[in-house]
């Protein structure tokens, strides 16, 4: 039986700043890594092929319930709200473990945290109290973050693009409520989440210049959960359209005030990117581990594959890339745990690098396995498909490049 993540009352709380060293994680993060690894290897791995080959709309609530029972859906929620009080470092380490087995499952958990992030960032106990303790019960609960639209993806992420955004979901003030109308697309967990942190443009503001964040319970009248996208990878998590038809949301569900959405969105992205980089790192690691096993087992020309110089070079390059990606996301996550606002540069660099090397490592690993890398039974081709996915969500390479270069030219307040 897997151990639920709890802390003994006598243990130091994970809230303190625990400086990771280059070789050692804080003890509570190590405990979390072990728990996530055991769950991924013992419970998730046997289900991976089934989850990958099932119809697009299939969803394994039983596995989600097991992850919930372990505490994986409440990692970042403060203890006074029933959570575990882990920071980004813990989240990222856990997501690498899950993604090394199944990136889609890691994203179920990651998307839930993305839906928790604006509520955490609000600093408002009145909104935190209404939504975050949901995750402390024994029934599994998921959340989602609804921003992407059919005609607006990056236009909602890049502040300079906001005036040019078209067809953005609208929010009209009506007394002490807002009325939301429009549609969101490719929303991870949209089909299964309890609520969505939803970004809509307040009437009277052009494009997305009035972008505003609302917490919307997904059982609200007027919401339709649309079809599930039939994706190439990440098939264990569901990407869904969410249709809002005159959905009434109390004004107290707004986070960051009217027009604050772009800032909320940037802050949550900066918080979350290290974790997404960890997912890509996990995908690369999963592919590498399969390749290592294969090259250690397979004999060609009288010696093991890894003893061929060309293969050895490839494996060495691949492992160096995975290690480098991990160090980058650990650094970014540590900074996100110790600075507010989270820095833009390090998480963007970590994700840009991890997304790229995931594709490189998975492709190389597939090549090393030859035909077996290309057929479904061996699991390698799934890593290749999933390596391609991370470049699309939570910042494309182009969006990341803009964030990185903006930081390079930013003359910020360095004396603090």
């Amino acid at each position, binding site marked *: 039986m897997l151990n639920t993540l709890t802390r003994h009352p006598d243990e130091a709380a994970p809230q303190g700043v625990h400086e990771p060293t280059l070789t050692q994680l804080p003890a509570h993060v190590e405990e979390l890594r072990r728990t996530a690894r055991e769950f991924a290897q013992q419970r998730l791995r046997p289900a991976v092929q089934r989850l990958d080959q099932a119809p697009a709309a299939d969803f394994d609530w039983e596995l989600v319930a097991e992850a919930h029972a372990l505490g994986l859906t409440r990692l970042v929620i403060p*203890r006074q709200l029933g959570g575990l009080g882990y920071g980004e470092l813990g989240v990222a380490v856990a997501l690498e473990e899950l993604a090394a087995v199944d990136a889609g499952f890691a994203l179920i958990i990651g998307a839930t945290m993305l839906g928790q992030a604006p509520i955490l960032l609000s600093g408002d106990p009145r909104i935190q109290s209404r939504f975050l303790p949901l995750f402390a019960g024994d029934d599994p609960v998921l959340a989602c973050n609804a921003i992407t639209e059919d005609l607006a993806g990056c236009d909602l992420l890049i502040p300079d693009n906001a005036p040019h955004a078209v067809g953005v979901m609208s929010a009209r003030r009506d007394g002490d409520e807002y009325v939301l109308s429009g549609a969101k697309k490719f929303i991870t967990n949209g089909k299964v989440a309890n609520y969505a942190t939803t970004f809509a443009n307040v009437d009277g503001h052009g494009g997305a210049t009035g972008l505003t964040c609302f917490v919307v319970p997904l059982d609200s009248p007027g919401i339709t959960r649309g079809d599930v996208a039939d994706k190439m990878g990440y098939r264990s998590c569901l990407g869904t359209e969410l249709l809002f038809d005159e959905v009434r949301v109390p004004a107290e569900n707004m986070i*960051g005030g009217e027009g604050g959405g772009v800032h909320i969105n940037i802050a949550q992205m900066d918080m979350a990117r290290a974790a997404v980089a960890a997912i890509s790192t996990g995908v690369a690691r999963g592919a590498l581990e399969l390749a290592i096993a294969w090259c250690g087992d397979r004999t060609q020309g009288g010696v093991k594959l890894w003893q061929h110089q060309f293969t050895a070079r490839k494996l060495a390059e691949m492992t160096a890339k995975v290690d480098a990606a991990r160090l980058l996301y650990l650094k970014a996550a540590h900074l996100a745990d110790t600075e507010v606002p989270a820095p833009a540069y390090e998480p963007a660099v970590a994700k840009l690098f991890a997304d790229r090397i995931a594709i490189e490592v998975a492709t190389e690993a597939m090549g090393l396995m030859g035909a077996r890398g290309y057929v479904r039974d061996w699991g390698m081709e799934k890593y290749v498909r999933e390596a391609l996915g991370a470049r699309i969500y939570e910042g494309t390479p182009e969006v990341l490049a803009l964030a990185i270069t903006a930081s390079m030219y930013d003359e910020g307040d360095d004396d603090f």
Partner: protein
Amino acid sequence: MPAFTTKDQAVDVFTELFEILLNDATFSRIVREENLSAHFVHTKPDLEIFVDSDGVRIDDVPYAAALKIKMSCDTADSLWAGRLLMPIAVAMGKIRIKGSVAKVLEFVPLLHPAFDRYPGIATAAGVGGAH
């Protein structure tokens, strides 16, 4: 026009504000139990405020606080008065914090009693002239 015309005015207002917080049963209990401390670095006018379970100190930093928070006095005025929301101030870099973010997430909701009291304190002290 800056909200605070003199450092003394800022010292009086923020001292009173944090003393009110320390008199709040929930705030003071958690500050004590969690060993929380906060070091506010305010600019324009420049002053440093150190808050822990022992009380409020001005320009006296006895040890490295769990949280170090930097903002201008104008930002502080807008924030406490409710004209500037915390997540926006943070996202725009108007407030910068160093320390455990998990502690920040615990700490910020505890500040709520101060939001209710600040307008009265600021008005009484003539902050901004127009509150």
